[in-house]
Structures are given as C-alpha cells and as structure tokens.
C-alpha cells in the first residue's frame, strides 16, 4: 500500500491523489493555468498560510470526508477574473461564488476517481465559503487533515482533505 508520510501519520495516497489530480485538471481546463504541487503534510488548526477565503464541501456515502480550498485574496481574484474574463479588484459575492464552484469541481472530479466498485455514487454537499481573516479553522481531534500546497500562475493556494473510505458490507 503506497502511503504519504504526513508528519508521522501515514495516509493512503489513493485518498489524496484523486483530489490532487482533480485540482490539476481544473486548472488546466477551465482556468488555462499552470500549477505545481508543493509540500504535503498534516494540516494544523489555525495554520499559517493562505486562508483569506476558504471553500469547503462534504462527501458522504462510501467515501466520507471533506475537502477545503484555501486562497489568499490575490489568488481568489485571479481565479474569478480568469474564469469570467473580468478585472475584479475586491472580494465580493462573485469571487465567493467562483471559489465555491472550484471546490465543487475538485470534489466532483475526485469522487469519480475513487476506486469504489459497484457502490452507489458518493454524494456531495453544497459548498460553503468562509471569507475574512477573523476566524480560526479547528479540526476535530479524531480526524486527520492533510494539507497540500500548490503554486499556480494565478498565485498560491492550499488544499486540505480529510477522508475515509468504508469497506463495502458483505465483501
């Protein structure tokens, strides 16, 4: 079993790779942007790093978890402007909506990549966006959140994933 050593916690790559691949595909297709993966590690509560705007979406069913994309303002604006062909300069509902759609697409692409045979499709929640810098992100103690750093020509951002896949009953 191939795994990533994230701060001493080993996480199966098949849980994380679908999200990374989906992120690459999103940037290549809809944003025509170059992207590079940076470090992979355990996400810390209230971690430093880009998080002016965070979009979260839940997955339920045989794969259960949550994925979050965290952006500094400049990257979020760059994404919205690239997507819409606009020149927005301040955060507004349009930017939040664009970022929500990004996490929706990343999660949707990832769930189709999970190697789950014969089970019902994994369900996605509707995305949620948190904006501003006066909040803290706390992760429940029993969950392991993996953080993947990215660099793109629209700016840096981070992806955080917590995931478990249930064995199919009867197998």
């Amino acid at each position, binding site marked *: 079993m191939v795994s990533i050593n994230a701060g001493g916690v080993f996480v199966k790559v098949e849980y994380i790779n679908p999200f990374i691949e989906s992120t690459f*595909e999103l940037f290549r*297709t809809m944003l025509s942007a170059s992207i590079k993966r940076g470090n992979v590690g355990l996400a810390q509560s209230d971690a430093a790093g880009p998080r002016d705007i965070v979009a979260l979406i839940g997955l339920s069913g045989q794969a259960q978890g949550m994925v979050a994309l965290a952006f500094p303002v400049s990257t979020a604006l760059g994404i919205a402007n690239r997507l819409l*062909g606009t020149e927005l300069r301040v955060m507004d509902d*349009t930017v939040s*909506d664009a970022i*929500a*759609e990004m996490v*929706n697409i990343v999660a*949707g692409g990832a769930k189709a990549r999970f190697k789950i045979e014969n089970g019902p499709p994994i369900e*996605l929640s509707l995305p949620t966006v948190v904006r501003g810098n006066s909040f803290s992100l706390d992760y429940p103690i029993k969950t392991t959140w993996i953080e993947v750093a990215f660099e793109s020509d629209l700016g840096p951002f981070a992806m955080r994933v917590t995931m478990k896949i249930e064995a199919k009953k009867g197998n």
Partner: protein
Amino acid sequence: MRALVVDDSAVMRKVLIGALARANIVDVDQASDGVEAVAATKQQDYQLVLMDWNMPNMLGIDAVREIRAQGKTMPIVMVTTEAEKSRVIDALKAGASNYIIKPFEPATIVTKIQELLAKTGAT
C-alpha cells in the same frame, strides 16, 4: 433560438452564457435551481437547456424528469461535476440528451453544443 441555463452558481451561469454566445446563442434565460427551471419551461419554449445536477430545492435530474413529463422534447444537456458512469446513465434514462462533465475547456463546450444542435436540427 432561446436557451435556458440552470445552475446554482451565478459564476457558472455566466461561463455557460459566454460559451453559448460563442455558439451564436444570445437569447438566454437563467434559473438557479430545478424548481425555477421547471417553472421557466412551463412559461417559455426553449430550444436548448443546460442543466446542473447538484442544486438546492430540486436536483437537476429531477427537473429533467419533470420537464420531459410536460412533453417537452428540446435538447437538455447536463453540465455537472457528477462524472460517474452510473450518473451519466441515470441522467440519460431521465431524459437528458447529452452530458458534459465539469471541468471543461470553453472551446470544448461550444463544440459540443454546436454538434448537438446540428444533430437535432435545432440550429
């Protein structure tokens, strides 16, 4: 030609309206969920519908079923992140005409729309 774009994301609706414009379809209405979409198709004859799947109030696939139950035969294209084969089959069984998976390259969606309309004779 009049088209309806259904997506709970205003940004995605703008992206799709831009793609339709590149396919010379500029007469476009918008709906932000399945309920609005069904209501719109009762009031207006559309020659093309682009339909998201995951939306509040009513899922896109349920809206497709309701639109077909009205006897409407226009092409309905699912434009969604739901990429599993079983989802595609479910959508086609519900009455969707075609399926485009997000993310997509803008040029690809224009081509697909043009091909679909040419096939259905709706151009």
